[in-house]
Every structure is written in structure tokens, then in C-alpha cells.
């Protein structure tokens, strides 16, 4: 591959990044609302809308196809809710029923129309990121960049505008629907706004990215962001950041290894999540491990203080409180005694006098507190 990256590569990267940002913004709200799998359901259902719209207009380039796709995504959400509320089926099963049914209907229709339409079901799943730059938007007579980049860019702009206008009510609805309803913001209305936006996102992005990458980008960056941030604004900013990182990383590695870019970006969202899982404050594996270690140390210091304060004024204090005899009394290995004692000494819970350990005032208070509780 000579002179990588060339213009086509840069255009592909642009499409990937815009798609990633659009999905991350649309997906963050689904993840927060615990509706992540709706992304999966919508992205599979839109095929039916495309086929039906095509039957009506008979033109693969028509904007009605996108309209039909968005409508069928919203219809899928409605159907899931109908099954849940009217037909007494649990949420997970409702989703699992709806999208295979809609997808099957689409596949059957396509198989019947195969002689007259070239709709590749395979491309719906895998996307055509590699070919996005071959389809430029033409204004007048000059191509002005990939069509998908313009569509996705428009979508990102729309999402940002909506977010800027509705950020405050969204925050209230998302964290306390009952309170939102009580101050006159309808959670139901916002639910449909968000699912419609999600549907629109799936529709705009699946052509370039493929439905699986859409799911990965909607859920992955937002889930990673939730491990780092606790505020809605932080979650949104980090989601976008992680999505951009995943898209760029996936694009570069995918291009170097010469494999499916969509697949590589999807794997990269997982890698970003894996790193977050490892390193995030509070919830990360390292943080959990450090916390556990600290708790164990606290417990041992407490044990030592209780032991010392029990014996230090007794007749056997010479034996029990002698630093080099602690190993046998507490049944701790020597290194552990050294670690725990030095930490307690540093925190001035103990003092050492001629090889004997004595509690300080603070240490005695702590021991009393621990032994009475």
C-alpha cells in the first residue's frame, strides 16, 4: 500500500468518524435508559421499511427509502412496547420476537423481488465502509465528498442542536421520570423522540457501517463512558471521544491488516471498553483491587490495635506487645507484621518504645470503637 493515507482513505475515515459520533450520541440515551438492545432491534428492522418503500417508489436512491426505514424502526419499537404492555410478554422476549419477524419479512420480500432489485442483505449486516468514497454527493457538476459523510454530518448537527435545546429536560427525564412528569415534561414524548432519533441514526449509519457496527458503536462507547463519568454531560462527551478513538484505531489497524473496517472498529469499541474496565476509577478492576487491598489493611491494623490495647496495661504486656513476638501472637508472617505496623506507625496510631508497641490516644480510641461495635 503506497502513500497511505490517500484521499479515499481520508474520506473513509471521515465517514467512519461521523458515523461513530452519530451512533455514540444516539446510543448513549438508549444505554442510560437500559434499552441497549433496542439498537439491535431497530437496526435489523429497518430493512423491511427499505424494501416496502422500494416497492412503492421503485428507486434505490430515493429519500423515501430512508423515510420508510426510519418509520419501520419506530414501528419496531412500538411493536416491542405493544407486546410488553398489551400482550403480557417480557421486554427481552418482546424484542427477541419482533426483529426476527420483521427481518424475515424483509428477507422473504427481497428473495421474491430478487430479479428486479439489487438489495444485498449481506451488506446490511456488514456495511460498505470501504466503498463509501465511491458514492459522492454531487452539487451542480462537482462531487463534494462522500454522500454518507454529508448524511451523517447532517445527523450529527441535528443531534447536537436537539441536545442543546433539550439538554436540561432530557437530564431530568432520564434520571427521574416521575419528577419530570410532575413538572410537566412528558417522559413518554421524550421516549419517542429518543427512539425516533435512534432509528434515524441507525438508518443513516447502517448503509456505511453495517447494522452490527451500529449496535457496537451505540452501546460500546456509552458503556465505557459510564464507567468513567457520573454526569450526563461527562457521559456524552466521553462517549463521543471513545467513539472517535475506536473509529480511528479500527480504521488504521483495519487498513494496515487489510480486513473488514467495520469489523475492526466494532472490535476496537470492545478494546476501549476493556481498557476502561481495567483502568476506570471506582469501577475499574485496578481500582477494585486497590480498594480491596486497602480494606484488608484497615482490618489488620484494627486487629493489631485491639490486640495491643487489650494487653498493654496487663501483666503480660512485655510479652504480648513486643514487636518481634507479634508474629507468633497474631499468627501473621513476618513481612505482614512489618507492613501493618509500619503503616500504623506512620499514621501515628502506634508508638514504639524499646521494642514495645503502645497505642497512641487515637489508636486506643479506634480500638475501643472497633471492639465495641
Amino acid at each position, binding site marked *: 500500500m503506497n502513500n497511505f493515507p490517500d484521499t479515499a482513505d481520508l474520506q473513509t475515515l471521515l465517514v467512519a468518524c461521523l458515523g461513530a459520533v452519530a451512533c455514540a450520541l444516539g446510543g448513549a440515551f438508549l444505554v442510560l435508559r437500559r434499552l441497549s438492545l433496542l439498537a439491535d432491534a431497530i437496526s435489523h428492522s429497518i430493512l423491511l421499511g427499505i424494501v416496502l418503500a422500494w416497492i412503492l417508489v421503485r428507486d434505490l436512491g430515493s429519500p423515501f427509502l430512508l423515510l420508510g426505514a426510519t418509520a419501520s424502526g419506530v414501528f419496531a419499537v412500538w411493536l416491542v412496547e405493544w407486546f410488553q404492555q398489551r400482550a403480557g410478554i417480557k421486554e427481552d422476549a418482546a424484542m*427477541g420476537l419482533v426483529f426476527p419477524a420483521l427481518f*424475515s419479512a424483509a428477507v422473504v420480500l427481497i*428473495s421474491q423481488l430478487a430479479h428486479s432489485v439489487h438489495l444485498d442483505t449481506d451488506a446490511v449486516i456488514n456495511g460498505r465502509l470501504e466503498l463509501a468514497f465511491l458514492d459522492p454527493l454531487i452539487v451542480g457538476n462537482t462531487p463534494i465528498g462522500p454522500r454518507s459523510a454529508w448524511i451523517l454530518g447532517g445527523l450529527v448537527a441535528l443531534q447536537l442542536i436537539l441536545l442543546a435545546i433539550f439538554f436540561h429536560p432530557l437530564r431530568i427525564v432520564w434520571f427521574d421520570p416521575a419528577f419530570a412528569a410532575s413538572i410537566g415534561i412528558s417522559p413518554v414524548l421524550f421516549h419517542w423522540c429518543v427512539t425516533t432519533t435512534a432509528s434515524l441514526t441507525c438508518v443513516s449509519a447502517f448503509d456505511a457501517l453495517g447494522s452490527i457496527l451500529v449496535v457496537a458503536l451505540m452501546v460500546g462507547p456509552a*458503556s465505557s463512558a*459510564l464507567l468513567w463519568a457520573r454526569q450526563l454531560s461527562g457521559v456524552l462527551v466521553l462517549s463521543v471521544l471513545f467513539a472517535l478513538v475506536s473509529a480511528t484505531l479500527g480504521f488504521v489497524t483495519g487498513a494496515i491488516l487489510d480486513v473488514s473496517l467495520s469489523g475492526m472498529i466494532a472490535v476496537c469499541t470492545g478494546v476501549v471498553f476493556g481498557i476502561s*474496565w481495567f483502568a476506570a476509577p471506582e469501577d475499574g478492576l485496578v481500582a477494585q483491587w486497590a480498594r480491596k487491598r486497602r480494606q484488608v489493611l484497615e482490618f489488620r491494623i484494627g486487629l493489631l490495635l485491639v490486640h495491643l490495647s487489650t494487653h498493654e496495661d496487663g501483666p503480660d504486656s512485655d510479652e504480648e506487645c513486643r514487636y518481634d513476638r507479634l508474629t507468633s501472637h497474631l499468627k501473621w508472617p513476618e513481612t505482614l507484621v512489618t507492613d501493618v505496623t509500619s503503616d500504623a506507625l506512620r499514621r501515628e496510631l502506634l508508638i514504639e518504645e524499646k521494642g514495645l508497641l503502645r497505642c497512641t490516644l487515637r489508636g486506643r480510641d479506634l480500638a475501643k470503637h472497633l471492639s465495641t461495635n
Partner: protein
Amino acid sequence: MNPLNLWEITPGLATVVLGTALLGLATGALGSLAVLRRNSLMGDALSHAAYPGLLAGFLLSGTKSVAMMVLGASIFAALAQWLTGLLIRSTRVRPDAALALVMGCFFGFGMILQSHLQQNPSAAQAGLKDYLFGQAGLLLEEDIALLAALALLVLVALVMGWSRWKIITFDRAHAVSLGINVFFWDVLYNFLFILSVVIGLQVAGVVLMSALLIMPGCAARYWTKRMSTMVTLAGASGAILGVGGTFASDQLSWPPGPTIVLLGFAWLIISFFVRDIRKKRNQYSGNSAKISDALHLGGVGAN
């Protein structure tokens, strides 16, 4: 012309019918447990996650050896299931996000393998793509043995451990307090689940596999409140849907997997409306019983 041969059942079609029936039986019965345990979408996640395993099995063996592909797919599905469980247990990530995340990343890896295969095409890989949408029409006689073994395994496991399955499904805490080895039964359930998904992929494909698992269970739930009836009905209707769907797809020349799913969806909707009508009638007869009771009591009071 033989009047019995109205449908022109060729040996090939008979194989496919038998195969889909066996698969429908196994997935229907096992899937109704998944519906009751509220992890219906596990089937969807696992079928996506198993896809790279199928391709890896193919890459390693170089042929479409069923054993290697099933092994590879099972390993990936098991890994995905373990990872999902770990995510849910040890982080704040919600179950829905964990499923979607694992599914997306694993399938992304599958797409990488697939594109790698496409760049190094060989005759052996023809038809490998069919695993995405399933190709029941390609079922061979040796696949039937595999499907029959699966169905038998599922039925034996369900019948042998029936009371335990029942307790664990409805009241885990009670099961633990009774000293039931919940871990063992969970492992068995997951093992059977993964096996059905992996074997079913060939017939139904990645996208439609989950429907095969949960549609019969959901429909059966409308007809009964007893778990034994539900599982039996789900297994039987799964088999019938398989047979009916295959015949329909043969007659209409529709793709078989989607046809079975659409038939299943129709069966679900019918089941819902039948229950709805029965419920309304029960309400009505319940009301009239109450009214006649009230009239009767009124009569007694008047005396």
C-alpha cells in the same frame, strides 16, 4: 401419479423436514426455559458471538468440517456467555448493554475473519456465508444424526431433571436452600443452550436463531399456566413450525429460515388472540356467575 406424493416429497426435502422438525423440537422446549428465566435475548447474543468461532473452525481445519466448526462456535459462544456474566456481576454495566456489547464485538471479529477469507478465496469456503441467514436446504443426512442427538439430549436432560429445572426457574433461592446444585444445572442449561444455538445456526442463521428459541415458548405461554404443558407445547409446536415452514418454503420457493420465523410469528399472534378471546369470555362468564350469585343471595335474603 402416486396420490401420496402430492407434495412431491423428494428424499432431500424429507431430510430437511426431519432436520427442521428435530431442531424445532429441541429449541422450542429449551427456549421456553429461556423465556421463563427472562434471558430470551441470550440466544441472539450467542448466535452472533458464535459466528467468528464457526469461521475460525473453518480456517483451522481448511474444510467445512462440521465437528471443527461446531467446536469453534461453541468455544466462542461459551466465552461470550462467561464474559457477559462477568460484566454484569463485576461492573455497573447493565445486562442489556453487556449483551449488546459482547455481541457487537464478537460479531465484529467474525466480520474480520470473513473479510480475510474473502481475500483468500478457495473452493471449500463456498456457502460459508449461508451461516448468516441459514440454509436449511443444505441439510444432509449426517446433519440429521447431529440434530437428533441434540433433540434427544435436550429431552433427556429436561425429563431427568424436571423438578429441579422447575424449582430453579421459578425460585432460585429456594432451590439453593433445598441443597440443589444450582451451579451444575446452570452449567448444563448453558451447555445445552450453546449447543442448540451452534447447531441451529446452520439451519436458521445468525439473525433468526433467537426467534426459533423463543417464539414457540412465548406462544405456548398463552395457552397454559403450567410449566410442563408449556414446555411440551413449545417443543411440539416448534417441531410443527419446522415442518410447516419447510413445506411452505418449498411450495412458495421462499427462503426456509425466514419462512419458519414468519410462520412462528403468525402462530404467536393467533395464540395471543385466542387467549384474548378466551379471557374476555371468562370475564363475561365470571361476571354472570357473580350476578347470578348476587341474585341468588338476594333471593335468600328476601326469604
